Every structure is written in C-alpha cells, then in structure tokens.
C-alpha cells in the first residue's frame, strides 16, 4: 500500500471519492458553519462558510438555556436503550429457535417475519395510536418504546448470523449439560457480538432520529425525544434564529457521530460479518 506510486488512475479515483464524500458531508459542514454565525451573517446575501463574527458561544448558550437539552438527551438515551434491550432480548432467542431448533411452525414463522419486514410503521400507526389512547398511555416512555420492542429486522439479521454458527457447537453445548437458554447465554450471545453491534447501529440510529412516532404519541415536553424537542424549539423559541437552531441540532447529533467515530472499526466489522450492507 505505502509502496504504491501516485499514478493518474489513482489520482482520479481519489478525486472522485473525495468529491462524493464532500457532497455527503456538505449539509453537516454547512450546519457547523451556521451554528457559529450571528443572525446578520446568516441572512447576508453572500454565502461564506467561515462566520464573519464568531458567535458559537452565543448560539450554544441560547440552545442550552432556552430548551431543557439535558431532558431531551436523557429521553433519547432512555428510549433508545429500552428499545434496543427489548429488541435484542426478544430477537435473539427467537432467531436462535428459528435457525437451530426443529419445530413445525418454523416455516410459518419465517413467512410472518418476511411479512413483518414488508409492513411499515406508518401503516400501523393509527390503530396503535387509538389503542394507546384508550389505554391512556400516551405521553409515556411506554408509548415510545412498546411498538418497537419486537423487531422483525432484528430477528432476520440474527437469523442469518446464527445459521452460520456450526451445529456441532450447539450439540457440544447440549452434551456439556446446557439448557437451551444456557446455550443462548453462554454460546450464542458471546459469539454474536458482531451481529449485535451491527444491529445496534441500525436500531439506535433509527430511533434516535425518529420524529414520526414521537410526534404522534407525545404532546408533553417532558417526554420529548431529541428530534421532537428540536421541533418545539424551532416553533416556540428560535423562530428564525437559525444559528441557535443549528447549535441545538449539533448538540443532538453529536452523541451518534461520536459513538460511530469511536466504534467505527467494530461497526464495519459487524456489518461485513453479517453480510448486510448498511
């Protein structure tokens, strides 16, 4: 790699890749830039990336004080963690049974999983809303978490991964005296970390950024997730103060960006090992 000469072909490839990366990053870069601009900068007729008056501090103070940012982030963490934990707790035993145990309903379950993959949340949103309303559980963590605890996508992803685990390993575990739950806890989970991390990205990213479902079931600010909080912030506080809005957005996207950068290698490993493209 290091010995490779800098040929024309390589230069073209590098240029194309950098160009692509720039296009993908452009909105984020623009967001970082706007978060540091004063009101007059944002609405000036010339477009510049570097703010003329550095007002990061002012904008971030506004974002942090005008809305209860800690509540938003905390809600995001709680909701994402609960969803992820329940999804894994349900999907792993389910996928194990479908991949490694022989039972009559296995085919039917596979069909149901496939069907589940085809139905989007938007189709079931209304009945769920009505049901939650009747149960008087709107505006709670329960309403945010419950519809997502069974992830057919998770079952599908783990199923593919578990199928690759050799049968002999499961047989050996049984002969060593493990129950089926023991096999899941002692053999399957410790060997499924790549799949679990891969699933973690899909799950956490999807639910951290989700606006649709919280918008339906949450009207009380105390349970607002970050994207919903941002919406309130824009409507009620910021108005056209885009600097503060972008600062708030930066704060909210930061945890995911940081987490991905830190665990990038493991994530990529996990996705390539499950044979699934993100």
């Amino acid at each position, binding site marked *: 790699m290091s010995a490779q000469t800098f040929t024309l072909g390589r230069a073209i490839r590098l240029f194309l890749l950098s160009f692509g990366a720039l296009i993908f990053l452009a909105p984020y870069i623009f967001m970082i830039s706007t978060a540091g601009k004063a009101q007059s900068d944002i609405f000036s007729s010339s477009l510049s990336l570097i703010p003329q008056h550095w007002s990061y501090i002012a904008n971030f103070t506004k974002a942090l004080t005008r809305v209860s940012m800690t509540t938003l982030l905390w809600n995001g963490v709680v909701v994402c963690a609960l969803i992820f934990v329940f999804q894994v707790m349900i999907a792993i035993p389910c996928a194990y049974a479908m991949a490694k145990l022989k039972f009559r309903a296995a085919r039917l379950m596979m069909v149901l999983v496939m069907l589940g993959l085809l139905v989007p949340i938007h189709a079931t949103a209304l009945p769920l809303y009505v049901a939650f309303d009747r149960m008087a559980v709107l505006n709670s963590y329960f309403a945010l978490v419950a519809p997502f605890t069974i992830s057919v996508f998770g079952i599908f992803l783990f199923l593919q991964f578990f199928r690759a685990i*050799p049968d*002999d*390993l499961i*047989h*050996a*575990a*049984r*002969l*060593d*005296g*493990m*129950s089926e739950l*023991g096999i899941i806890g*002692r*053999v399957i989970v*410790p*060997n499924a970390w790549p799949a679990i991390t891969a699933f973690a990205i899909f799950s956490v990213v999807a639910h951290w950024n989700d606006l649709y479902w919280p918008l339906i079931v949450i009207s009380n600010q105390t349970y607002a997730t970050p994207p919903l909080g941002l919406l309130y912030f824009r409507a009620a506080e910021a108005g056209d103060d885009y600097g503060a809005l972008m600062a708030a957005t930066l704060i909210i996207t930061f945890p995911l960006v940081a987490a991905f950068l830190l665990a990038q290698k493991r994530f990529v490993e996990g996705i390539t090992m499950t044979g699934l493209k993100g």
Partner: protein
Amino acid sequence: MSALSLRGIHKSFSANQILKGVSLDAGENEFIALVGPSGCGKSTLLRILAGLESADGGEIVVGDRDLSPVPAADRNIAMVFQSYALYPHLTAAQNIAVPLVMRNLTRLQRLPLVGPLMPGQRKAIANIKREVRDMAASLKIDHLIDRKPGQMSGGQRQRVALGRAMVRRPAVFLMDEPLSNLDANLRVHARGEIVELHRRAGVPTIYVTHDQAEALSMADRVAVMIGGSLLQLASPQVIYDDPQHVEVAKFIGQPRINLFASQAAPDGTVAFGDIRLRSAEKLTPGTPVTIGIRPEFVAVNRNGQHGLPARIDRVEFLGSEIILYCRLDAIGETVIAKLSPAEGTGLAVGMSVRLEFAPDRLFVFAENGRRLPSFPMSADVALETANG
C-alpha cells in the same frame, strides 16, 4: 453384562430409511470402532446415542437405565466432534471447565454477579480449576491453557476437545471421526494416544470413522455398517479373515478383495479354476454365487504349469510391497495380487504369468451377499464327486 446396548434402532428422514434396526452391545472398557462408507448412517447412530437426534424406534440402555427419553444434557455421554466444536470465545482451560461448571455448580452459583455470593461457590470453582489443570497436564497441553481455539493448531485443538470430553468422567465416550482433520503423520501418532486415553478412562467408547486402518488398528471390536445395517461386529482379525458379508469383505482390506461372479456347478459345488469348494449347505445347480480372495493370497507363478494364465496390466511399487494388476486370459477379469518386493522383482507390464490361489482362503458369498461357509475339496475327492 454389557455397559451399553443399542436394541433395534430405527431412523428415517422422510422416506429415506437411514438406520434399519441396528443392535449393538459394548462391554465395560470396550473400544468399538463403527466403520462404513460415508452416508451409511454411522454418524446418525452416534447422534442418536448422544441424544442429539431422536430415534424412530429402539432402545438405548446404559448400565441398566433406558436412555431413550432422557435429554442429551442429562445422559452423561461425552462426544468428540470431527470439527472439535470448541467454544471459540473461551480459552482452552475454560473450554475444558464447561462440563464441570454445568454439573458441579448449581444454577444460582453459575450466575454472573450473584454466583460469587452463593455459599460453597469458591470451593467448587477451586476444585474445577484443579481438575482442569490435572486434565491439561495429562494431555500435555498445560502450556496452551490460556489460548483460545483460534490460536491453536489442529492437533492442539483436538487435545482440548478430548480433555473437555474426558474431564467429567462420562458413562459413554463417543468420537465422531476425531482424527480426520489432522495431517497424515499426526493422525497415526494420535491413534495410539486415543487408545491409551481410552484405557486410562475405562469407559465404553464408540469411535466412528470411515478409515478402515483406524478402525482395525485401534478397536477391540469393529462394527461394519453399510446401508443403515450393521453387517458384522467382531474383532479386527475376524472382520478381515472371516467376513460374513460380501460388503464387509469389499469395504475392509487395502487393496480391495478380488471378487468373481460364478455359479454352482451341477454337483452343487463351486468351481474356481482347478479348485472346487463345497458349501456347508447344498447349493442348487446354477445358483449365482460370488467368490472372493484377498490379494495377499494370490501367488504369481512365473514359469510353472500350475495356476490360471494371466497377463500383467499394471505394477505398483509401494516400497514394502508390490501390487500387481493382472488380467485373466480365460475370463478377462482383473485380479489384484499383493507380493513382497522379493517375489515381485523382475515382473513387468505385459508379461504372461500364472496365478495360483490359496484354496483355503477362498470365500463364497450367496447372491444376497451373505457368506456361505465352504471348504475346499482335495483334488481326488473332487474328481470322485465329478464322476459320481
């Protein structure tokens, strides 16, 4: 009393009958090799014995307990897998410890966080650690104890797998081709070690293999399984010298036994060249039979008058022996002869020779493959019967 017995085990996968009523008894300390071509059902039988598959019918008795309804986890049967099936996330020591942890600790003692608070847990764990160390020392893998399976060679993994199976002193020990993933040199060496381990453990052992050399060299008794049936269960020597079925004769022996299709003569005997064989049971004239003789009992006569004329097709020099492929002039069949290098010097492709067959080493098999007890008739008696 037999320590382990299988009675009439049946198994079918949909319409495919894999096991057709297999019965087998193993004594205390006995080492039985279950040998047969791939797809004969030997691995399925082993899995049924271990409890990993359920049989459609039949009984599995260990000691005096019927194990058929007992789940695999409670059978106290240990198995070494062809792939070794070591837990990839655990070190060698942890792998060996697993069966002890599952048996010697209670459910609560095994739990993370809560476990160490349970009374007696520390002592039980210390015992397990000591047993694992002893086992590793006896297998000479003490230096590998902290390595994970991914960092070990095939031979080392195989030892860890043996350790994991033996550490809990099982009632029955099963091995499913444990040597087939090793290279040839190591395999021969490991044979001796497994026999030695078996002797020390003193537990009935069923060893599945498709390699007849392994079966013959290691086992007290060899069970030959073909097409889902157990055709013969006997000591290696009996299996080789006295096969009870044509398939057994064909499967055991390298190079393969010579087989010739023939018919019973009008007088009820079986003729092969100038040799006449009389069967213990009277054969109807014209009954199709198969005559077999092992290559080492075919002698080459270079310029004598005795024997059947043949032509050498191919000569294989194997160092300690020479394998000769000859074509019989009369019937065009190929005969394989195994000679010592001294006997074989100077033989070349295309030479005409005469082949002599040892009369008392000829086997006669009925059309259904069953062996027909037979004995050679001396020349004058043969003449008499022919005339009379």
